[in-house]
Each structure stands twice: as C-alpha cells, then as structure tokens.
C-alpha cells in the first residue's frame, strides 16, 4: 500500500514536473517580452530575469497611437471574417469530401493541399493583381480574400478528418428524418464537431491575426493596416533604431486577446460530445 502510494506520488510529481517544463518552454519568451516591455529603453541591453521596474511608458507609447487601435480593429474584423468564411466553406467542403464518395474527390483534396505548396512570395504578385482587379486593394476585403489561401486548406482537411469520425448511423437517422444535407450538416454534425471547429477556428484566427506579408503588401494606409504590420512599423527614433520596448509592449497587447480567446474557445474543446449516440 505504501509502495503504491509512493508510486502514485512519484507519478504525480513527474507529471507536474513535465507540466512545469512544458509551460516554461512555452511561455518564457512571452514572459521575457513582458519583462522587456516594462523596461525603460536605456536598460534594454541588460539581462534581467525579473520585472525589476514597472515602466509603462512603452505601453503608453503604443496605445497613444490611434493607428494602433485602428490596426487592432482591422485585425479583429479580418481574423473573424476569415474564421467565419473558412469554417463555413470548410464545413461544407468537409461534408462533401468526408461523407460522400464521388469521382474526383481525391483530386479535390490534392488541389486543396496543393495550394499550400507554393511559397507565399511566389503568389504575391499574382494575388496583388487579382486584388486590384476586384478593387479590394487597401481594404480588409483584400486581406480576407487572400487569407483564405492558407486558412482554407487546413480547415478543409482537418474538418474532413473529423467529419469522418462521426458515426454513419447519425447521418442515416437524419436522412430518414428527412433532413437535407444542409440540415444534417448544420443541425446534426456541426454541434458534434465543436472540438474540431473550435480548434480549426482558433488556428485560423491566429494564423490570420498574425499574417504579415500579405497584410503588408495589400494594405497601404494606416487606417487599413493590421496588427503585425502595425507592430513592424512601430516607430523608433530613426531608420536603424529598432524600438524594442514598444514592439514588445505591442506584442504583449496583441497576444493577450488571443490568450483570452483560447481560454474561451477551449471550453468548446470538450470530450464526449458523441457519447450516447450509438451502442458500439
């Protein structure tokens, strides 16, 4: 019994040790960014492990720029729209690809995947032309459109994978109940796919939130820019000076909403949604 308990304790300690190491690896850089953001610029080049001064001037600098707030707004608009579009198109496509057998399905899957095989720079100029043709240059619309190029493929693939795991009988029951594919998808499958949708949604949101190259190329004026661009364009004293303090402060500011989002979304990543559906 004591040996058991000892083993149990050892396991618990080991587990928490693992958690501690992982958490440290994950958040240390972010923590360091916070530490840096709270330092006055003169102390930037000194190593310090703890927050030894609480200098909020960097935050003031960042937040006092109206363009930064506009950038946050733009980012939210763009990222939310991208997530909505990706999930909508992704879900419908996943149903088609995951639950219907038809000729050309493999091809479609490969095409979707193939889109992810080009380096972003290679599509930049062509995409620029498309966006100008559609008159979406320098507007969130252009970004929303262009972001689908990297959010759609993985959304489609991931949702397809999860879609396949749902029991066939459920769909059959819905068919017998007279549900159209659309109803089956929205009323029956969607609620069950919450873990997958929350996950992909989160991934897509973050990907869109963080995208830089397209955002830089397809927007021009400060009022249309997104957060990463705004951060990259944060003013230092001169051409060569990198304003580390404000950049870190801005990074912290834009990362916090994401963390909150993760906390909210992860409640949707819960187990056992399909429990009780079928016997075996």
């Amino acid at each position: 019994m004591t040996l058991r308990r000892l083993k149990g304790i050892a396991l618990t300690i080991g587990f928490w040790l693992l958690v501690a190491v992982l958490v440290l690896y994950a958040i240390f850089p972010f923590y360091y960014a916070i530490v840096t953001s709270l330092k006055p610029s003169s102390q930037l080049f000194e190593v310090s492990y703890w927050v030894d001064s609480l200098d909020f001037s960097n935050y003031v600098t960042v937040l006092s720029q109206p363009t930064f707030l506009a950038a946050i707004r733009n980012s939210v608009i763009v990222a939310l729209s991208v997530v909505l579009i990706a999930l909508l198109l992704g879900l419908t496509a996943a149903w088609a690809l995951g639950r219907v057998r038809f000729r050309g399905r493999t091809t479609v899957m490969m095409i979707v995947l193939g889109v992810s095989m080009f380096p972003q720079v290679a599509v930049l100029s062509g995409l620029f032309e498309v966006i100008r043709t559609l008159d979406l240059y320098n507007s969130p619309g252009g970004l929303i459109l262009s972001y689908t190029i990297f959010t759609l493929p993985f959304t489609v693939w991931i949702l397809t994978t999860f879609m396949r795991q749902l029991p066939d009988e459920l769909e059959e029951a819905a068919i017998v109940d007279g549900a159209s594919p659309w109803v089956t998808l929205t009323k029956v499958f969607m609620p069950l796919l919450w873990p997958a949708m929350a996950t992909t949604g989160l991934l897509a949101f973050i990907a869109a939130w963080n995208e830089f190259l397209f955002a830089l190329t397809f927007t021009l004026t400060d009022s249309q820019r997104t957060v990463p661009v705004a951060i990259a364009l944060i003013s230092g004293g001169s051409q060569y000076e990198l304003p580390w303090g404000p950049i870190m402060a801005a990074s912290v500011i834009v990362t916090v909403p994401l963390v909150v989002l993760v906390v909210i979304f992860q409640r949707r990543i819960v187990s056992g949604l399909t429990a009780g559906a079928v016997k075996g």
Partner: protein
Amino acid sequence: MATRQPTLAQTSAAQNPGGAVDATQPARPRRERGTRVRRRRVRAAWLFLTPMLIGLALVAGWPLARTFWFSVTDASLSSLEGANFIGFENYLVHDNGWYGILADPLWWQSVWNTLYFALVSVSLEAVLGVIVALVLNAHFRGRTLVRAAMLIPWAIPTVVSAKIWAWMLNDQFGIINHLLMTLGLIDAPLSWTADASLSMWAVIMVDVWKATPFVALLVLAALQMLPSDCYEAAKVDGIHPLRVFFRVTLPLITPALLVAVIFRALDALRVFDVIYVLTSNAASTMTMSIYARQQLVEFQDVGYGSAASTLLFMIIALVTVVYLYLGRRQLGGGS
C-alpha cells in the same frame, strides 16, 4: 471507426455516405453509381464544394498560373511586361558551362537545408505535440490556464516571436547565453544565430517552440473525440497505460496527427520568416523559400525566382506524395 478511413489514403478506404463499403473492394458495380439517391448526394457534394473551389481558384489559380508562366521567361520585376519566353533556361542551360537553378550549388544547399530542417523540426513537433496534447487532455487543476499558456507561442505573431528569440539568443546581451553561463553550462557566450553549426539548431528550436501548439491542439481535439468506453475496457483488462497509448490511442489519433503533420511539413518546407528574421540569408540556413524570395524580391529576377518557386512546389509535392503513400501503407499495415 477511425481506422476505416485512413484519412490520407483517399484513394482506397474511404467510407460510403450510406455507411458501408468493403474496405478491400472499393470498386462497385457500374449500375449502382447511377442511382438517383447517390446522384443527388454527389450533386449536393459538388454544390457544397463549389464556393470553396471558387474561392481557391480566385486566390490561388491565377497567381499560381502566373508563377508557372514566369518560370519560363526572363521576366524581371522592373519589366514584367516585356518578359520573353526562354524555355527552361532558368532551370538549366548550357552556355559555356552550366547555368540555371539546377546548376546552382546554393540551391542544392538550400534544398538540403530545407529538408533537414523540415524533417527534424516536424518530427520534434509531432512528438512534443502529442505529449503536450496528452498533458492537456488530463484532468488536473489549472488545466485551463496551462492550455492557454501552451498556446501562447502560436499566438504571438511570427514576426514578433522571431524577434523576441533573436533578442534572447543574442550573443552579447541575450538571456539564453546569460542563463547558460550562470548555470555554468558554457564558459563563453555562443553566437547562436551567427555560428553556422549552431544557427540551424537555433532555428529549429524556435520553430518547434512556435509550432508545437498547432500539432498539440489538433491532437487534443482528436483525443477528445475518442470513444471513452474503449478505455474502460482497457482499464478493466488492466492493460498498461503505455501499451494502451501505443496500441489504442495512437492508432486512433493517427488521422488527425497525420493531417497536423502534413500541414506542419508543408509549412516547414516553405519556412521563411523565422529564418529570415533570425539568421537572415546566410548560406548555412538558407532554405528554398528564402532562395526563391531572394531571387524574386532582392534580385528582382522574377523569371528565375518563379522557377525556384516552381521547383520548390515540385519538391514539396513529391515529399507530400511520398508521405501520403507511406501514411497509407502504415495505416493499412496496422489493421
């Protein structure tokens, strides 16, 4: 149920909407394909796919077609219009010695770098991602916070996180060197990003840090959808948790893991910003994307750069096909 659909092996064991199809016999009698019920479903499927396909055609079709075209011209950024068709000269041409990408040692170096980077970092990410997912799947106090913490690396914009790491890895005032020296692990600061023998590992470390949450999140979602009663059965049978993990959990999350890995691999093979910010374009960490970008943007040589992009595309496609093939084999062998 999960294994009957080796996700990546689209060609064979896919499931019938109506529920049942013999995995070993995908071919069905002709007559069946034509029934109206099926046709209706197939029509709905195409209808559902159309918006996505239009979207992709719009954002990807034209740009990709252009890239292909430019790769066989001598277009340059300043004179895109006046591009001349020059065949495959960008790829390889003999003109008092071999010229073209395929004759460029730097290109081959970048191919090697890319493959090495992708293999190492994606493997590490897969392993770490599964571990993190398992931890996050356990019930313990503070799970919400730990989950959020684990996702932070993914949440920080790459541009920024690469800079944070560059800052931390700085040889003079970087905290990593400081830490290692305080701990007595090294006695002189290492120049992580400049030293050719270290820079690749520095990049891998940052990439693993950054992308593990992606894998972990997907695996976590898969873990959450596993049938719980199987675990009860295993529990009653007293099977060692490790064995349960390798024999039950892993096979069941394989589809999701494979998808996560393939998207990570695609990203890793196109890796750009982390390396660009961290080590710039030193030859020891030059990847195919950086090479292509250098040609396209810095050297203004759209033709050459497009050719490099096209080659990059083909190499990725090759890797993907091999991967899908192996993934299917592995799944098929498991049953």
